[in-house]
């Protein structure tokens, strides 16, 4: 059964797969994680703060994003962002937004909802006494958050944040709906061009597995290193 498989196709397309495909996948993962954590932390702070209305807006945002399939949001943003851009800037025509920018915005906004919930749990895990001690020293609310609560929350939540990033790394393959060439997209194109579907999809699966598995082992080691001494 396996006698007519030709794995040489993998070797021949390595450059395209990794230089084009994987570079795209990793760039999108890294930027969306960074943006998602920053935005997510802000949403978590909004949700936990005692300003009027903001907690409800933050909660509504999180619930909304988590109730939609990611593919739908990717599509939706791709067709909507040009119009929203035009509306904001007052331009007459829809603004041309590249597929990459559109997917980056989508993933950032989508992941922010998940990162927000992780950060919310992290912030709530910090004892009230820590906040009181910060205030008692004369620190302001932003100073207490920036110097005492968030650094501890990040450390406590690091394993979960990185696990979510690994999920994001796998989810970026959904950009195929925008005809973008990520790693899976590249593999898929070669597979169809050369009629080597089994070989290419097997190889793609092995690569995704290897990277995700290595990353989760790394998370475990990192966890031991960054844990707060108690």
């Amino acid at each position: 059964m396996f006698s007519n498989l030709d794995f040489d196709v993998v070797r021949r397309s390595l450059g395209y797969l990794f230089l084009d495909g994987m570079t795209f996948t990793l760039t999108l993962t890294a930027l969306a994680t960074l943006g998602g954590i920053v935005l997510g932390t802000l949403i978590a702070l909004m949700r936990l703060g005692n300003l009027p209305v903001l907690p409800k807006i933050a909660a509504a945002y999180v619930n909304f994003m988590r109730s939609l399939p990611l593919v739908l949001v990717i599509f939706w943003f791709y067709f909507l962002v040009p119009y929203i851009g035009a509306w904001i800037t007052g331009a007459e025509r829809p603004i041309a937004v590249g597929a990459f920018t559109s997917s980056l915005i989508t993933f950032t906004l989508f992941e922010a909802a998940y990162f927000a919930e992780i950060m919310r749990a992290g912030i709530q895990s910090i004892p009230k006494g820590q906040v009181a001690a910060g205030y008692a020293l004369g620190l302001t609310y932003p100073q207490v958050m920036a110097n005492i609560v968030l650094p501890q929350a990040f450390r406590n939540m690091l394993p979960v944040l990185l696990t979510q990033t690994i999920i994001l790394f796998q989810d970026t393959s959904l950009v195929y709906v925008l005809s973008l060439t990520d790693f899976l997209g590249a593999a898929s194109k070669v597979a169809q061009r050369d009629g080597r579907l089994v070989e290419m999809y097997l190889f793609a699966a092995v690569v995704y597995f290897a990277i995700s598995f290595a990353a989760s082992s790394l998370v475990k080691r990192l966890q031991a290193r960054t844990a707060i001494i108690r």
Partner: protein
Amino acid sequence: MIEIKHVDKWYGPSFQVLTDCTTAVVKGEVVVVCGPSGSGKSTLIKCVNALEPFQKGDIIVDGIKVNDPKTNLPKLRSRVGMVFQHFELFPHLKITENLCLAQQKVLGRSRDEAMARGKKLLERVGLTAQADKYPGQLSGGQQQRVAIARALAMDPIVMLFDEPTSALDPEMVGEVLDVMVQLAQEGMTMMVVTHEMGFARKVAHRVIFMDRGEIVEDATKDEFFGRPRSERAQTFLSKILTH
């Protein structure tokens, strides 16, 4: 220095934790606040630097009204040192960073200045050797001494202690009390919530006895330990002093 005038505090609409509390602490005075659990002593001391809000009455610290919405609370709090029952050192920061953080962020001291001040106070509480460790590597007594040094680094005009020895193993109580006694003898204004009657006898000028949210007794040390006027204070004293 601290004036507490007719303070009332409720949790929710009906549960009153403080009832008409009135007292004062003058400059250089050491006042011990004692009383049974749930009598509101911790709540009262937390009202002094506005860590707890209260609904009625006034608290004035060094001429500044704590409950005035216009008061710059961070500025006021930076001049009022506070030591907590559970130390509340910042576990992700080294001891030196714990000492320097607020000096730099709040008082605007340079790194070198803050470090020098921190090291000096660390020496004073006898913990120079622990400077580069993390709080989790220190014993409870050592952590509490660092917490006192951290509060002193801000050069406070008054120090508040909220049951500073209650969470400590018995053999560590002494080392913390020694630091506090020394501080009192140097003339620091102190308000101390504690059950350590030995400490009260040694350095307190006045003793306040609270029960069910009220200040039942507010007397000089000799009066309080000699012949408390209230029956509740007498019962309390007989219970804790016979052991």
